[in-house]
Structure formats: structure tokens, C-alpha cells
């Protein structure tokens, strides 16, 4: 024992109490049960390795591709997700009903500058682009993803920029967060072509925390949301629902497949999780948190609201100064809504929520909120 007990007698007493409490627990013999389960997993792994001539090659290809992508000199590689004109300017809903991550048409406000005009030639170093970044926020149904748009220097690799932002920076909205342990960095990110089509690759690294395991205190739901945060952010930056292979770099920095990240299985490329179970179902997109606007101002967002009903309130402290409702364009899938608010100058909290189909029996409605200053 290396610790120095302040009161040795009391330490001994606690030691005795804890030992007394459990020393006569005789657990059921379980080696057979454990062996039965590990034998299965060995067989599965061997099967994977047997079929792995290709897999080993694929891994080597990953290493090469990632090496290429980390080199800024080659970032115009067609496989790299660049913020090309098509990526920045086509808001749409893809076939699966998942909202496109192209920037919406924000009303100009200091907090959400409109997308820059992408140039056809290689961008100068100082150019910026607007990238979608997902964060975790608590909702009445557990941790879910919310989305913000961040204006960041454009280094020609939007995936790397966006995922780095997601794991390592604080969101604008104080209700959101990232749960990735501090010190987590994205070593490389990009796309590679393989037989099955395009695959996104994200290589994480953390020299102080073992990312394979969920840190003590992180719930399985938070861990799952954190993995989905990377999947959604990478796909949004690429503007494409490609599967995402997460890799972990350790020691010398050589990336490798890992069975788990934050205890979530990630050995295979991941498809995005079901949006209904992954995303918060009401988002305010514009104005952003902390925005200064002039009255009247327009509010835009996405909601998968019950019967497409979207309710809103403008609050001054606890006092509701304005309220109203609108309908999203579609019910039950993340669909755009917008409304206009008129209010005298002041500081407010804008709250948007869906209607409660259960009349108070079920979980609280989905909701998002933003702090807004209306200036004269």
C-alpha cells in the first residue's frame, strides 16, 4: 500500500468492514461459461482472419490513403472531401429522408455568417468555409445529437476540419457538449475508394486516455452518441452517407483497427444510426446561440414533430413575451420549419418544441433553445 493513512486505526477498521461484508460471498463457478463465450468469439475472429487476405490488404490501403490525406500538398485529390461548390450550395433532403447538411440560407447575423462563395481555383490559405458539426445534448429521451454550423479556415479537407471541431471544441450553444475525453485529436480523416464504393476514414488519437473504453461515468448512451457524433459529422462534411471506419492511433502514431471506441463496437465501417433514435427531433438552426438580430427576425430549423406541429416561445427570464406555432413541411421526419418573430430590443431565450401527443403522460416534448439579443 503506497497511500499514507492519516489515521491507521480507522483505515484498518474500514478494511475489516469491507472484507467482512463480502469475504464469504462464494460466486458460482463460471470458468465453463466464460470459456463457452470466448470460444465462440475466437471462432468468429478466426473466420474473419481466414477471409482476411483482402482485409489485410484493405488495411494497408487505408494506411496509404490516410497518409495521402494528411499531406496538405495533395489535398486536391478527387477522393478528398473538399468544400467544392457542389458541397456548399445544394440544400436538399436525400432519399432516406435525412436532412441534407448543406448550410441553410441563414439570415445574415454576426453569429452565423453566410457561407462563403467557394472559388473554383485552389483556395488561398486564409479562406474559410462553413462546416456542419454535430454535438451531444441532453434531451428528455437521453443524449441526442444537435447540429451547429461553424465557420472555419478551409484547409481543403472538410472532413478533417469538421470532425476535429466536433471532438475538440466547445459548441456555441451551452446546452450542447462533446463527451470525447480531453486530449482527443483527429490525426487524419478523409475518404478512400474500395470495392464497395467510398468509405470515410477517421483516425483518432489520445495520448493520455485509452479511447477504447468508455471513461468511468460515461453512460452507454453517451458513448453511443459520441460515436454517432463522428459518423454524422464526417458524413455531413462529405455530403454523402458513406460508411465510416474509425481507427485509433497509438504509440508511434500508426493507426489500427480497434474493436471498440468508448466501449462501442467499431471494428467494422459504421453506417449512421437511425435518425429517429440518434438525433434530437427539434433543432433551431438559425439564429445561433448568442446571435444579435433586429426585429422582425426569421427563425429556421428542422423538426420531426408530432403532427408536424412546432410550438415556440420567446422568453424574458421566466416570462413568456411572445408565443406561436407553425408547422414543419412534413410530419415525422426531420423537416424544415420557419417563422417570424417581432419583439422589442432586449435579451431573450427562444424555445422551440414539438407538441406533446400524450398530453403530459409521456416524456417531455423535444426542445431546443437559443439565447438571442434583439438590437434596435
Amino acid at each position: 500500500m503506497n497511500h499514507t493513512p492519516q489515521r491507521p486505526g480507522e483505515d484498518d477498521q474500514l478494511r475489516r468492514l469491507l472484507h467482512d461484508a463480502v469475504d464469504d460471498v462464494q460466486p458460482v463457478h463460471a470458468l465453463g461459461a466464460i470459456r463457452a463465450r470466448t470460444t465462440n468469439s475466437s471462432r468468429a475472429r478466426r473466420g474473419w482472419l481466414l477471409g482476411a487476405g483482402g482485409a489485410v490488404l484493405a488495411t494497408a490501403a487505408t494506411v496509404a490513403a490516410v497518409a495521402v490525406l494528411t499531406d496538405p500538398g495533395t489535398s486536391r485529390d478527387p477522393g478528398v472531401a473538399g468544400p467544392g461548390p457542389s458541397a456548399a450550395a445544394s440544400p436538399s433532403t436525400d432519399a432516406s429522408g435525412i436532412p441534407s447538411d448543406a448550410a441553410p440560407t441563414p439570415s445574415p447575423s454576426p453569429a452565423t455568417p453566410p457561407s462563403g462563395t467557394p472559388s473554383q481555383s485552389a483556395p488561398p490559405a486564409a479562406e474559410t468555409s462553413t462546416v456542419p458539426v454535430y454535438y451531444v445534448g441532453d434531451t428528455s429521451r437521453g443524449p441526442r445529437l444537435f447540429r451547429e454550423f461553424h465557420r472555419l479556415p478551409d484547409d481543403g479537407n472538410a472532413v478533417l476540419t469538421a470532425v476535429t471541431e466536433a471532438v475538440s471544441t466547445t459548441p456555441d450553444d451551452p446546452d450542447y457538449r462533446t463527451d470525447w475525453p480531453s486530449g482527443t485529436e483527429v490525426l487524419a480523416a478523409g475518404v478512400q475508394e474500395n470495392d464497395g464504393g467510398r468509405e470515410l476514414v477517421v483516425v483518432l488519437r489520445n495520448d493520455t486516455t485509452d479511447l477504447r473504453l468508455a471513461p468511468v461515468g460515461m453512460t452507454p448512451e453517451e458513448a453511443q452518441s459520441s460515436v454517432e457524433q463522428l459518423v454524422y459529422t464526417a458524413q455531413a462534411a462529405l455530403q454523402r452517407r458513406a460508411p465510416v471506419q474509425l481507427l485509433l492511433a497509438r504509440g508511434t502514431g500508426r493507426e489500427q483497427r480497434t474493436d471498440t471506441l468508448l466501449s462501442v463496437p467499431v471494428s467494422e465501417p459504421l453506417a449512421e444510426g437511425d435518425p429517429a433514435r440518434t438525433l434530437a427531433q427539434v433543432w433551431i438552426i438559425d439564429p445561433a446561440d448568442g446571435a444579435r438580430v433586429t426585429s422582425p427576425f426569421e427563425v429556421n430549423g428542422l423538426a420531426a414533430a408530432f403532427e408536424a406541429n412546432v410550438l415556440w416561445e420567446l422568453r424574458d427570464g421566466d416570462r413568456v413575451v411572445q408565443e406561436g406555432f407553425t408547422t414543419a413541411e412534413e410530419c415525422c421526419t426531420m423537416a424544415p420549419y420557419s417563422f417570424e418573430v417581432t419583439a422589442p430590443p432586449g435579451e431573450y431565450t427562444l424555445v422551440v418544441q414539438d407538441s406533446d401527443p400524450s398530453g403530459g403522460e409521456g416524456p417531455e416534448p423535444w426542445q431546443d433553445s437559443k439565447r438571442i439579443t434583439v438590437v434596435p
Partner: protein
Amino acid sequence: MSSAAGWDADTAVDELYAAHYHRLVRLSVLLVRDVGTAEEVVQDSFVAMHGRWRKLREPDNGLAYLRQTVVNRSRSVLRHRGVRERYTPPVVSDQRGVDEDALAEERRRQVLAALRELPGRQREVLALRYYLDLSEAEIAETLGISRGAVKSHASRGAAALRHLLEDAR
């Protein structure tokens, strides 16, 4: 356990099971109280360690991984279970002639119930320190927190546990 070079995953499970299974289950009982749950947590942890053995390779790493996984899974089981059972000070019988076994049983129940009243971190630090006799550094590593935090959880936890047990008396 010095001649462990070259253990494969199966051998690692067999050897670490023989040496540590009972202690790890008891550790988990201190954290989750229920023996059946603790057995499941520890069995799952052994299966997880088997899957990771290629990377762990050394018995010490295997044991450290088991400890950390048992603590993590015990905690997540508690969270999953959701409802934290309220602590009810036990009714102490004033009957004469209560036999020794029953008294000892009652005391064990009190200690486990009191542990369940503590915040998770304090409970974990106390169990690792006073049951597994880990050093502050080892506890810090197992829980992924600083040594300073270990110290403060230990002293607060010890004080709170004493307080709870005195109340129950």
C-alpha cells in the same frame, strides 16, 4: 505469475480466473450489492479481456484491464438499473440471544447498504483502496482520475460511510 510469457488468450483467462475471479466478484458486490449481477459483470469482463488479449499480452495488463472493466461495468449496471434504492436504516433487534451469524449477517447488510448510499466515485475508491488494497496511483489509473481526486474521494467516502454506519447503530 512471472513465467507468463507467451500466454495465449485462453490461458490468460484460465490463469487470471483461478487467481482473481472470486476477488473480482466480491469487488463488484461492494459496488452493485447483488451477487448475481456481480457475477455477470465479472464474467463479461473476462470475455472482454479475452477479446483484447492480443493487445494486453501481459498478466499485469490483463488484471488491470479486468479491474477497470469490472468497475466500469458495475457502474453502468447501476445506471442502467436506474432507480437507486433508498437506504433504510435496519431495524436492530433488541432480543437477547440473537445468534452471532444473524448479527454478522446484519452488519454485512448494513455495510453494503451504506456503500450504496455513497456517490459512485467514493464507493469505487473505497472498494479499490480498502478491499483490493490498491495504491493511490493504481486507483487513479483504474478510474481515470487524478491522485488528488482519489485522495478527496477516499476521505469524503470514509467519513460518509462512518457517519452512515453510526446512524444505523
